[in-house]
C-alpha cells in the first residue's frame, strides 16, 4: 500500500466528514463559535483579572497574551490532525472500532481522519491572530533565531498537546472511557497553559515541567526572547520539540499497545 494511496483515502474521509457536518448548518456555525469561545475563555479570564491586578507573577498582559497565542496556535496545529481522538470512547464502546480493523490503513490514522471537527477552524485562526497581535505588542527582535525558536515551540506544543490526548485515549481500550481524563488535561492546558509556571509552588511546578511538560508549550520558549529569567537555564526553551517528540512517542506506544486489548462490543 503506497503512502500516496493512504493519503488519498484519508483525504476522502475528511471530505466526507466535512460534508456530513455541513448538513446541520446552524450547528456547524455554532460549533466554530464554540471552539473559539472555549479557547478564548483562558484569555478572557486573564484579561479580566489583569485589568484589575496589573500583573501575574511579574508578567504583563501583553506578555501573557503572547504565551496565550503560542499555546492556542499549538493547540490548533494539534487539532488539525487529532481532533477526532475525542470520539474514541464511542468507537470502542459501540464497536465502531471494528471497522478500522478490517480496513487496510492503520487504525489510528482512520480514527484521526474519519472525521475532522470543524471547531478546528476557530482554534487555528484564533491562535494565529492572537499570536500575531501579541508579537507586535511585546519587545521581541525579529531575528532568525527567535523565529526558529517560535516555530519549534509551536511544533513542540502541538506534540505535547497531542501526547496528552492520545496517551489517555489508550485507557479506553481497558476502561471503556477516557474522556474524564482527557478533559483534565484539556482543561489544564487551556486554562493555565498561558500562565507563567513560575507562579506555582515547587512540587506542582515540577510536575508541569517534567511530567506533564506544559511549561514547554509557551512559558519556557517565550522567556528567552522576552529577556526573562526562569527557574531553568535559558537554553531549555529550545527543548520544546524534543520534549514533544519524547512524550508523543510514549503516547503512541501506549496507544498501540493498549489497542491490542480491544474487545468488540459483541453485536
Amino acid at each position, binding site marked *: 500500500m503506497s503512502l500516496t494511496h493512504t493519503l488519498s483515502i484519508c483525504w476522502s474521509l475528511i471530505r466526507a466528514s466535512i460534508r456530513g457536518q455541513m448538513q446541520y448548518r446552524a450547528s456547524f456555525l455554532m460549533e466554530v463559535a*464554540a471552539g473559539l*469561545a472555549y479557547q478564548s475563555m483562558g484569555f478572557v479570564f486573564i484579561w479580566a483579572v489583569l485589568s484589575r491586578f496589573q500583573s501575574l507573577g511579574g508578567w504583563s498582559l501583553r506578555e501573557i497574551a503572547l504565551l496565550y497565542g503560542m499555546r492556542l496556535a499549538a493547540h490548533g496545529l494539534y487539532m488539525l490532525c487529532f481532533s477526532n481522538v475525542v470520539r474514541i470512547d464511542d468507537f470502542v464502546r459501540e464497536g465502531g472500532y471494528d471497522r478500522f480493523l478490517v480496513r487496510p490503513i492503520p487504525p489510528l490514522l482512520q480514527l484521526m481522519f474519519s472525521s475532522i471537527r470543524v471547531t478546528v477552524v476557530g482554534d487555528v485562526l484564533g491562535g494565529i491572530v492572537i499570536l500575531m497581535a501579541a508579537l507586535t505588542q511585546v519587545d521581541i527582535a525579529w531575528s532568525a533565531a527567535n523565529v526558529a525558536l517560535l516555530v519549534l515551540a509551536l511544533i513542540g506544543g502541538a506534540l505535547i498537546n497531542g501526547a496528552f490526548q492520545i496517551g489517555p485515549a489508550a485507557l479506553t481500550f481497558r476502561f471503556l472511557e477516557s474522556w474524564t481524563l482527557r478533559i*483534565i488535561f484539556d482543561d489544564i492546558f487551556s486554562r493555565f497553559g498561558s500562565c507563567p509556571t513560575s*507562579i506555582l509552588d515547587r512540587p506542582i511546578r515540577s510536575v508541569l515541567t517534567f511530567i506533564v511538560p506544559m511549561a514547554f508549550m509557551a512559558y519556557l520558549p517565550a522567556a528567552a526572547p522576552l529577556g526573562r529569567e526562569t527557574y531553568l537555564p535559558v537554553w531549555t526553551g529550545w527543548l520544546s520539540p524534543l520534549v514533544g517528540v519524547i512524550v508523543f512517542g510514549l503516547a503512541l506506544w501506549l496507544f498501540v499497545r493498549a489497542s491490542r486489548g480491544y474487545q468488540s462490543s459483541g453485536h
Partner: protein
Amino acid sequence: MIAPVSWRLHPGLIACTMAAIRRTWAYRIRFVLWVVRMIAQLYLLRMIWMALYAGHDVVDGIPANMMVVYLTVAMLQEFLIQPLIVFEIEQRIMRGTVASDIVRPVGFMQQMLAYDLGGILGRVPVLLVAIPLSMVVGWLRLPPTPAAAAGYAVSLVLAYLISLMIWLVVGMGGFWMTSTQGLRFLLSTIQSFLAGAVVPLWFLPDVLRTVLQLLPFQGMAFLPLSIFVGQATGIDILVALGIQLFWVVVLALMAAFVWRRAQWKLVVQGG
C-alpha cells in the same frame, strides 16, 4: 399520542431517576478522575489568585482567604448542578429515540427532569468525599452566619432551577435545529464565566459587570456564592434571592412556551 402534562408522581419516574443514578456509576473510574480534576483545577486556580494578590491580604475589600472559599464552593456546586439534561435531550432527538419517549405514559419533560435529578443524586457521593477534604486543607469553611447558611441553601436551589430552565430551552432547540451540539458547547464553555464562577463580578471591569448583572447567569454562581462567603449580608441576601426568583419565573415561562411549540416540530431522523 402525546401524554398530557401532569405532575402526579408516576412509578415510571422513580425508575427513570434510579436508572440515571445507576448510569452515573456505570464507569467507576470516572469518580476518581472527577475528584482529581476538581482538586487539580482548584489547586492551580488558588495559586493563580495568590499570585494575583501578590502578598496583599485584602483587595477591593475581598480578603484572599474569602476568595479561596469562593472558588472552592464555585467548583463544588458547578459539579453538582451539571447540565447533563441537555445532552440527554439532544441524544434522544438525534437518534430518534425521542419518539418512543414521547409515547410513554409519563410526559417527556417529566422523564427528563427525573433523569436530571438522578444524575444529581448520583454525584452527591463525590461531594461527600470532596467537601471534608477541602475543609481539612483549609480551602473551604462554613458560611459566617446562620443567615448566610440558610440564604445559601435557598439560593443554591434557585441556582439549580435557573440552570435547569436555561438548559431545557437550549435542549429543546434541538427540535428545530436537530443538532444542538454547537449551542450546547458554546454555552457550556462561557457559562461559568458569565455566571461569575471564574472571576467574581467584584473584580470585573465596570462595563462587563453591568452586562453580567443584567443576565440570568449570575444567579447560577455569583449570587449564591456571595451569600455563602458573607459578602452579601442582611437585605442584600433577600435582594439576591429576589433576583434569582425573578429569573426562575421568566425562564420557566420561556421553557413552557418553547416546549408547547416543540411538540409540533418533532422530526424523527431515519425512522
